[in-house]
């Protein structure tokens, strides 16, 4: 199914994540095998509570306590020091969270410039880059607004601008368009699509099946496991629409 020409960036083998102990024990991720190659644009779908956010946290090296194997760029994540993981987050990964993305006491410009701090870029340069990034998202005239002065959709756009400001090679976006109308959603999807065309790897969680048209591969999850995995790049574009619709209504075993 998967494209074999490019090297794997992410490799999961029998990944499990357990919450609670004893009777309360339950697996939010229950045995996932997955290989993601460089340059893929993956859309993850699935019902609420099926473990999407949990998996994104593990993929983004935020959650260190999981069972199974996770190799990033061919190196097992478990053997890395915290400092090394922080450096990978800083240099390779861009994050968009499901909610509460921005730091309330910083203005938009400072929020967007935040990841650049940990890359060691000077303040003037930081603000310049962040300002350009905000312009791409049509928020340049609100640079000095505070997060609470924005609409939910605008907050989400700032969060995406911030995730991209570092020019990460892997972008993890947990419902980046959750609060946006279709026009705003498409602005963001175009931006992600451009990044994808430039060779970046994008992993996006979404509940909106229409947005999967931008993806090269659609994965559906159910109860902590992968239910379907469709590589759209391998299929004719004309079939995409129908396929998405089917994954939305009922799970389809592959």
């Amino acid at each position: 199914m998967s494209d074999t020409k490019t090297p794997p960036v992410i490799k999961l083998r029998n990944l499990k994540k357990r919450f609670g102990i004893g009777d309360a024990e339950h697996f939010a991720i229950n045995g996932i095998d997955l290989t993601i190659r460089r340059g893929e644009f993956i859309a993850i779908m699935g019902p609420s509570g099926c473990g999407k956010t949990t998996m994104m946290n593990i993929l983004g090296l935020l959650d260190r306590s999981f069972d199974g194997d996770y190799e990033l760029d061919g190196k097992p994540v478990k053997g890395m020091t915290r400092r090394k993981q922080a450096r990978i987050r800083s240099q390779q990964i861009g994050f968009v969270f499901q909610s509460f993305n921005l730091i309330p006491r910083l203005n938009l410009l400072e929020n967007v410039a935040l990841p650049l701090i940990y890359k060691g870029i000077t303040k003037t340069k930081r603000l310049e880059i962040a300002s350009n990034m905000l312009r791409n998202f049509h928020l340049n005239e609100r640079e000095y607004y505070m997060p609470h002065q924005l609409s939910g959709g605008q907050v989400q756009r700032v969060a995406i601008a911030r995730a991209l400001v570092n020019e990460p090679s892997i972008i993890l976006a947990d419902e980046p368009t959750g609060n946006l109308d279709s026009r705003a959603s498409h602005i963001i999807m175009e931006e992600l699509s451009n990044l994808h065309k430039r060779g970046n790897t994008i992993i996006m969680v979404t509940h909106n099946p229409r947005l999967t048209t931008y993806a090269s591969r659609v994965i559906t999850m159910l109860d902590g496991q992968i239910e379907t995995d469709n590589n759209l790049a391998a299929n004719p574009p004309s079939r995409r629409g129908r396929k998405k619709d089917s994954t939305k209504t009922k799970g389809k075993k592959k």
Partner: protein
Amino acid sequence: MRFLLINHVQNAQQSLRSSRIRSTLTMLGVTIGISSITAILALSGGANKIVGDQIDSLGGNIAVIRPGGTIDPLSNITKNQSNHDYATSTLTEADVTTVKSVPNVQMVAPLMVLSGTIRGDSTAPSGSQIVATTPSLADISNLNMREGQFLDNALKKDSVVIGNQLSINLFGTEASTGRILKLRGDDFTVVGVLKRQNNPYNYNSVDFDNAAIVSFAAGKGLNQNITQIQQINIRTDSVSNLDPTVESIQKAVSVNHKGENDFSVLTGNKISQPTSQLFVTIAGGSTAIAAISLLVGGIGIMNIMLVTVAERTREIGIRKALGASNADITWQFLIESLAISVSGGITGYIFGYIVAFTISSFLTFDPVINWQIAAVALTISLIMGTIFGLYPATRAASKDPVESLYQYN
């Protein structure tokens, strides 16, 4: 790293500015502590300096022997010279004789300071002192007469020279030559009154304006024939001879003391040690205030930083997700607490000088301004910020990123 520090400082500024009242209140403890310390150091430095200046003005050929071993110069600040009333001196009359016979020694004046009632027409206030010494003191310590004469060996044993203020206190006039006064019950005749000195802080630790000066023999008589020498003042015949002479004195007196290191021969700045009772009280009181307010201030910093860390839990999660390492987070919060303590320290330093100059307007000397005091204030502030900021900062850094990100607050 250097660059990150700058960034953390900017971040701290911003964060403190956004909660101005809270930061100001937190700074207050440090401010009070540092201002007490600054005031103490500035005033004691001023007192030391004025005494040093006196010694310089006396011609640079003065040495002083005091009982007790050499004192660590750092303890000058907090420790004061032993109180005259209780001190048991290790210096003896034999030492005085020995010193007199050392070559190049021009003049020797032992000081025996006694307390006791001084009564004329009225009774002198308790701060007045009885000093027994030899005629050379007038020359060594530059004591000039308003009227009459200083002690000399031809005078009768019951002669006394009194300070200007003491004369007023006892007889209501500066002109009291010929009057009779009682020292510890014995009658003495005033043979002279000193010019006003206005110099209560001096290397003799005697306020001559409020002193009754008698001959050494008379002093012994007042003290049940026990000698109790607090200090021996020495003048050499020239400045260049001072150092070698001090060495000879050291050796000669050491023989008397059978090699025991229970006295010190001091020159120059080492002589200066303020001993005013008022000063001891102020310094002691403000040291206590300083210690308590620094402790309370430190706990305040820790408390506020813990609150700040709790409030910013989600921010910590976001920052970690965006690439901040644990060290980055530690520095961020540590620098914030340092910003509080150092701002408090700087305010305290300035405020301390305001206090010092206010107090000194009632005294006869000015506070000193030097880099050492600034360095002490800064160092204490930095230590405070570090000690009380480290725990909240490490707590912040050790937070789990996922839990922080999804915490409700």
